[in-house]
Structures are given as structure tokens and as C-alpha cells.
């Protein structure tokens, strides 16, 4: 269940609709400080269903909506769509690709879609879980997290292994 494309629109610093087409091998993202690289990781975490504002560096979920700049007005909603290759038929749907979409409006309303059809957050989370990427914890390694790995206690190291098992 590899990544095929990611589309961001109004998500954090990605005001304009932006699409990344991934290769199945090694994708390397570069750019200056503050350009939006970690925001791309946040977008992936968010569309996969994370609710932990702390892991998105926000205090309220609404912080992920493009807040405007000195020269551009804020946007009314954040939207991220992530398309997977259903290559190993890990997910029992008869489709070559699976697209999950998450949308948040400033008034706090949320929308979720599975291949364009409205669904619940839980449906997305279940789908990913079946695909073996349900628990994001070590699928996404955030900036600064590596330094903490060895500081963790033996119970935490066990938990990492149990989760992967």
C-alpha cells in the first residue's frame, strides 16, 4: 500500500493546491527552513486520521487551516487527499487505487471521503489498520524524534516492538 499522490489545499502553509506524485523508491524532500517540508509530513499524518494536535504542532485543530499571510487572506478550509496503490490487495476492495480525503472548515466542521464517497473518520482509520499502517507511530518519524528514541524506558522499547509485531 505505497503512496501514489498527495494533494494539499489550504493546509498550513500550502494555500495553493499542491500535488506530489511519489515514486515507489526513495523520495527526498528538500528546501529552506520554513518552506513547508514538515508540513507535508503533518498533512500525511492528518489525512491518515491523527487527532493529536501536539503531533501536528498545533494547539487547536483549526490551526491547520491556512491562516493567511501579510499579503494573502486566510482560507476557509484545509483539505488533504492521499492516494495509495492497492498493490498487495491488502485492502479487500476491488480497486487499483484508494484515495482518502480529509477536510476541515473554520467553523470546526469536518468531512471525510473514501474514493470520493463521504465516510466517517473511523472508516479511514479501519482501512489503514487493515493495510498495516494503522498505527502511525513509527511510520512517520517527526523532526527531532530520533534523539528521544534511546532515552525511552525499556517498557517503551517493548511497546514499539509489540506494535510492529
Amino acid at each position, binding site marked *: *500500500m*505505497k*503512496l501514489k499522490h498527495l494533494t494539499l489545499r489550504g493546509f*498550513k*502553509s*500550502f*494555500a*495553493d493546491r*499542491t*500535488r*506530489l*506524485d*511519489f*515514486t*515507489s*523508491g*526513495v*523520495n*527526498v*524532500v*528538500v*528546501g*529552506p527552513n520554513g*518552506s*513547508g*517540508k*514538515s*508540513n*507535508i*509530513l503533518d498533512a*500525511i499524518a492528518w489525512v491518515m486520521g491523527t487527532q493529536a494536535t501536539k503531533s501536528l504542532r498545533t494547539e487547536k485543530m483549526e490551526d491547520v487551516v*491556512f491562516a493567511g*499571510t*501579510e*499579503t*494573502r487572506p486566510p482560507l476557509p478550509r484545509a483539505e488533504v487527499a492521499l492516494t*495509495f496503490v492497492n498493490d*498487495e490487495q491488502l485492502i479487500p476492495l476491488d480497486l487499483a487505487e484508494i484515495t482518502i480525503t480529509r477536510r476541515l472548515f473554520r467553523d470546526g466542521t469536518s468531512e471525510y471521503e473514501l474514493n470520493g464517497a463521504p465516510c466517517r473518520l473511523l472508516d479511514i482509520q479501519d482501512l489503514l489498520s487493515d493495510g*498495516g*499502517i494503522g498505527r502511525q507511530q*513509527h*511510520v*512517520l*518519524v*517527526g*523532526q527531532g*524524534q*530520533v*534523539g528521544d*528514541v*534511546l532515552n525511552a524506558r*525499556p517498557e*517503551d*522499547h*517493548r511497546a*514499539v*516492538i*509489540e506494535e*510492529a*509485531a
Partner: protein
Amino acid sequence: MVDLFEDAFTDIARYYEENFALVFPGGTGRLRLEEGADPLATGVLVEAQPAGKRVGRLSLLSGGERSLAALAFLFAVFRARPSPFYVLDEVEAALDDANLHRFLRLVHTLRESVQLVIITHQQQTMEAADVLYGVTMEPGGSSQVISKRMTSTTV
């Protein structure tokens, strides 16, 4: 449940030893189970001994050594029980050039079978890319991304 953990532990422990030898030539890395009454809850101890050094506390390792040992451990988990993809954000920031080169061997162990998205500031990591994505933002503007396919003839 215990068997699932035991199997995973055995595999991850083996890959950790292999990875450690790749990134700390001459060094020794081991995973051990804590002494404990309860086999369902004994913790996992990560040991890391760079070449020539004596087994000491993990806390005495340098910033770069600790990062590298942590990456050897994480990549052991990745190798033993792979997800389809991983996204890594500046995980090699603390490594000097020589260790960065060795870290890229870890990346190599995974790249045939697992999709990787790696965010970096490091030149050597950029050279490992199949596709490079350049992210930019004009002051007051929106983030933009331009991608470029790298081939083995591109340096």
C-alpha cells in the same frame, strides 16, 4: 500474544545487530530482555557499544552516536516488520559526514522493498534520491513543490 512479541523480538534483535555493525564498524549492538518476573511485561534494553569503547551507559554516548544507534534500532523494526512506506523528517541531522554515509547504508537495506519519503538538509542524502522534491515559499506566499526525477547519470 507472547509468541507474537517473542518472534518479533527475535527478528528485530537480529536486524539490530546487523544494522549496528553496518553503521558502527567494529562496534557491537544488542537487544536484551530485562530480568523480570512477568514475561508479558519485561522491558527491552537497547545496548550500543561503538568500536573500541567499553559498554557504558547509553546516556554517555555523544549526540551523533545516540542518533545513529537509534536509527539502527528503528530500521531493525522497519526491516523485521515492514510497513509499505515510511516518512522520515531530518533524522540524520546530528550525524557527521562519515556517519551520514553509513546511515545511508541503512536506507539501502530498505529501499528495494519499502517506499521512503525522506526530508533532509543533507547533500549526501539528496544524492540517494530516485526523485527529489524542492519545497519553496516566497515571503507572504504559499508553499510550492517542484519535483525532479534523478537518474544514475545525474550527479
